[in-house]
């Protein structure tokens, strides 16, 4: 049984697809869905129907996970919607280059240098902590081919509490 399950997993993850189908009714608030071609986090969900004896429809309001832009859609509850694969991996910050690119180290020790210092509070915090010589963990949000550092956290706090 376990072998069978594992086999199924490999098949599911082997394709390069950025989304997978899910029945509309199985979506949930705080889950993800593609709305107007963008990966969104569902912040509101409600059902309605055409007439009292009609079939259910689901009304979704989502926020683009990268831009925060609001998107909406309505879909019969039995239809499938595309759900984006959304990853949030943690990397250790090693360096910040002069042109604003980050050197990040993943769990397995591989380095990457393709992400920039993010905008907003996170970017400010990241630079301040880096300049202060603190160890920093960066959470990288990845979906539909886009990637961005979405959150940072001081790594010393982690060590202390552990």
């Amino acid at each position: 049984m376990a072998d069978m399950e594992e086999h199924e997993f490999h098949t599911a993850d082997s394709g390069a697809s950025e989304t997978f189908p899910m029945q509309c009714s199985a979506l949930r608030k705080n889950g993800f869905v593609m709305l107007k071609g963008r990966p969104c986090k569902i912040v509101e969900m409600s059902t309605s129907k055409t007439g009292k004896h009609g079939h259910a429809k689901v009304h979704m309001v989502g926020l683009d996970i990268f831009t925060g832009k609001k998107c909406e859609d309505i879909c019969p509850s039995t239809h499938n919607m595309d759900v984006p694969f959304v990853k949030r991996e943690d990397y250790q910050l090693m360096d910040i280059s002069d042109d604003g690119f980050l050197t990040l180290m993943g769990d397995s020790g591989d380095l990457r240098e393709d992400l920039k210092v993010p905008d907003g509070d996170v970017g400010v915090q990241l630079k301040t902590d880096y300049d202060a010589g603190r160890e920093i963990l960066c959470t990288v949000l990845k979906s539909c081919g886009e990637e961005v550092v979405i959150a940072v956290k001081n790594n010393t706090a982690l060590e202390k509490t552990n």
Partner: protein
Amino acid sequence: MDVRGSLEQLETAARILMAPPDIVSKDERFAAETMIINFRKMRNAFVLCKYILENSQTELVIFETADVLRNNLMQDWNKLPDEDIKTLNQHILNILLGNTEFSYAMKRRLAGVIALIVKHQSLTNGAIGKQRTELVSHIVGTALNTTGNHLVLACCMLDALLAEHQYVVNAEDASLTYEMHFAAKRDFENSDLLRIFQFCLQFLTTHEHSPMKQRDLDHVLKVLEIILCWNFTKQNLPKRVAGVIEMEAMPTFKPPSSWLDTINDSAFMPIFFNIHVKVRHDDNFVLRTVNLLAQLVSMHRPVLMNRENRVEFLSKILPPFTTLLNLPDKLSMEIYGLSDLIRKILLFNRAALLSLVETQTLENFFQAIGIFSCYVIQQAAIEESKSGVDDRLYRDSLTRVLEAWMNILTDTENFPKQIVQPIVTDIFNCYLKAHLSPPEGFRQLVATADESEEDEESDTNQFRDQLQAVGVFGRFILPHSVPIITQLLIFKCQALQKQIEIVASQAAPRESLEPIYEDIHWGILMAGHILAFDGLGETNLVPSEIHDYSIAADKDPDLSAAAFEKSFQMVNVEENVDPIVRLVSCVIILSETERRVNASGLGYLLSPELASNVLWFLHRFCESYFVISEEYYTNVSPSFLAAWGPLSQVTKISQTFLLQRVKEDLIRYNGEVTVMRDAINLLLSLVDSNKKAELAIHSTELPAIVEIANGVGPGKYQMPNEAYRKLVRAVISVGSFCEEQSRREQYWDQVLVPLAARFQNLSGLISTEKHRDDIRMEISCVLSGFIGAAMSSHSKTATPLFKRIGPVVTECGAILATYHNYVDIVELCIELVIELAKRSLSYLSSGDSVTLYHSAMSVVKSYSSHARGRVSNEKTAEEDTFNDLVTLMDMLTCLLSKDFLDLSPESISGNNTPPSVSASDVSLLGLGTVLPLMNADLLQFPSLSNKYFRLVAFLSELHADKMMVLPPPMLQAVYESVEIGLRNGAADPFASCCEFVSCMAIHISRHSQQSVQTSEYCKPFLKIFLEMILSQRVSKESIPSISTVLFALITAFPDAYSELVNQLLSSRSSEESRNKLSLAFSKLTENLNIQNGGDRLSRSAFRDRLETFIFSAKGCLE
């Protein structure tokens, strides 16, 4: 004091305040407001007030002066010479009589001052009530023959007197004691209140047949309404109970026996009806006069003491009311009021009493309410066809009127059934017709076909009360209701079959099915409510009248059972079958029709709403009738035993069919959340007893349902998360009802072993492939499955289930650490702990409890290490943190439940040794985690601050000792958050904060921990609360909490308290005020035991004294 100058300043300020905004500057307005506010706080202002009253014509200034006078009179009554008060009183009276152009509100304020003076005079100067009675006599004596301004002024004075005497415990005037307020009110009720009442009646009688000025009538009716809604004093009620009762807005009318003569007067009753009939077409009056009637009919003891009195009262009231109901022109404005009147008459006069009223009067009355009920049903049907109506007047009236009938229909032993039977039949038929489409009924078309409606509440919820009442109507006339509903369902089911064929052949649109669906929908709802009632958690029994009806029908039981079985093959049931079995068979045939339509690929034509109704009906039927327990009843219908008894072969076959329906609906309707919910409910009712569960386990269909539950997951069968949890819960519950342990375990293996295997499989993969999307989704699904399993736990199954869920929950901390970036998984990990804490923890052994505590602790640690210090750019980051915190606090609070209620085997056997870790350790650790994440902004959110402060209060109540030894910075942070909670002032968090401080203070006091460093954090609250009281920032509702906490603080820090009091006293500039305040302080704590946290009596005395203290302190500080 330069009174003239002061008046000039006040008048200027008033002019500025009343001026249009463009004429005065902001600063001018602010200065004017400050001036008026300072005037309101003024003490010893008699001279100025008197001067103002004599010389000012500015309404606003006089208006404010009235309030200042009231306050000053309350504070300084004893200091003022009688003569001065008399002069003042007379002066105000002169102003009232002389200035006809003053507004009513203005006059009412001044009248309030007179009422206060009279109340005080009546209590302090000689015979109680003397001055008041003189004034009332004067007012009513002159008012009776006047109209216009004089009458309005009289009513204004009476209104002020009524208001002054309305409350005892909650009276605004704290200068009088509770006992004095009580004496004044009681005396008022027995004398002057009756005189005022008589005056109103006399006025109405005099003017009954003559045209009346609208304004005059309005004022008299207003006074009358206050009297009919009067909360009469009751002897021997504890003060706190009396305080609650007297705040009731619409109490029943209970005049004392001294009113008997007035009540018995033959003109008394008709006048109310006559006036209503006279003014009912005027929208300004109709609501008030109907309300007067409703209050009048609520009249009972002590004035209507015995049965004869009551029957006489009914004989007087029923004929005019019957006439009123029979008026041909019904007004929408009075419909709700009349419905309420009917309800009150039938509620306050039980069936046995009504049956003593003369037969013709009674018959006429019931005839009239029958016709009225049908009228309301018809109007409600029209109203229901309109969309977007906010005020459902007829729907609400119908609910009321049907509710009224319940008092008669459920008390058949004491009432002649034959009088109401034909009327009940008419109402039932009318209700049925109102919900059927033409030509059988008169349901109106609702134009919504193309519109998409947002989640509307289901009819079973929206019309819950109506349908329950109609169920009672139906059971009252079973020989009529059951055949008619059966016939309807047979006829409509056939119509549906035909129409589906027509629509399938495209000869008609799908919409043509809607009226049939709607007819069947209501037919099923009515049938379901007739057959069974919602036991609201109690065992759902078959109503006895249904057994009697079935037994009386005397049909062949075997024939009935065979017919029921055949209904699953859609064989129509003939009339020679038991009528109840036949009715249920009709629904089965309908259910089979749906299945076959679906099997033929026409499922898209079916109505999910109807599917939901059919499942709802079957669920209700299964709860009460299916596998019927003979031992619950004295008489059981043999037909029920043959068709649905535990030993019947048909039962077994039917259960399989019904399980099949559940299985099919779980797949067919997996996009319809309500249908799935009803299907799962049906499943639960098919297995909710040992006998049913044993039968189900042997059924061939149950494994198929188990397979569905096992098949839910990513890339497999999809189901809404909530539905999946409920399904697992239902499937596990089947095992919970198995008596035999080995069979139960064997059954659970079918569900929980595959789930555990999936979990095991994941554990291996998480370490190496944690970022794979499919693994994450599988984790979500498996955790949801275990949450569903945990939800099914109860006292008997908590331990065996924990053996299976325990290994999963111990991993939750690690899972959370790995997936801390994924909100959904974080929440699921916490939710699993919550479900176990909620439903299992109390019953778990100490060993298992410790396992759960460790798991919870590891969840808290993981959460804390990843959430602390995190800065995020995500748009929903704040909301996510908020949700996490709310869930986390739920978890910490649920864990504490073990400290409240421990039903573990060790606790029951008495071998209780303290475990290595306790619930409080986890909660305190969690508190340490939550604290750094909380801030003043987050505490503004009501749901979060409620939960946080409740947790803090629980912890201090149960474990103040452990709180005291928390790391000082943490405890300081808790106290700081509590201070924020107190300042925010929202009621619930405020009470929790008070509870926290008092628990800590009591602990410090009882264990003499004043010298411990951490008790220093508690001490400043003494000042905080005292300041709160002295600055008059305390609402009446919060006084109980504040008195408890202040008393506890005084017992904990008596020296600091004395020091604070001394500081306060020395800061007073005038000696008089210092002495008064000092006296108030000493009275507050005089002779109280404040050692070791104080005793109950002292605490209670302190509470009573605090209110007086607040009043006295107010007087000293202003």
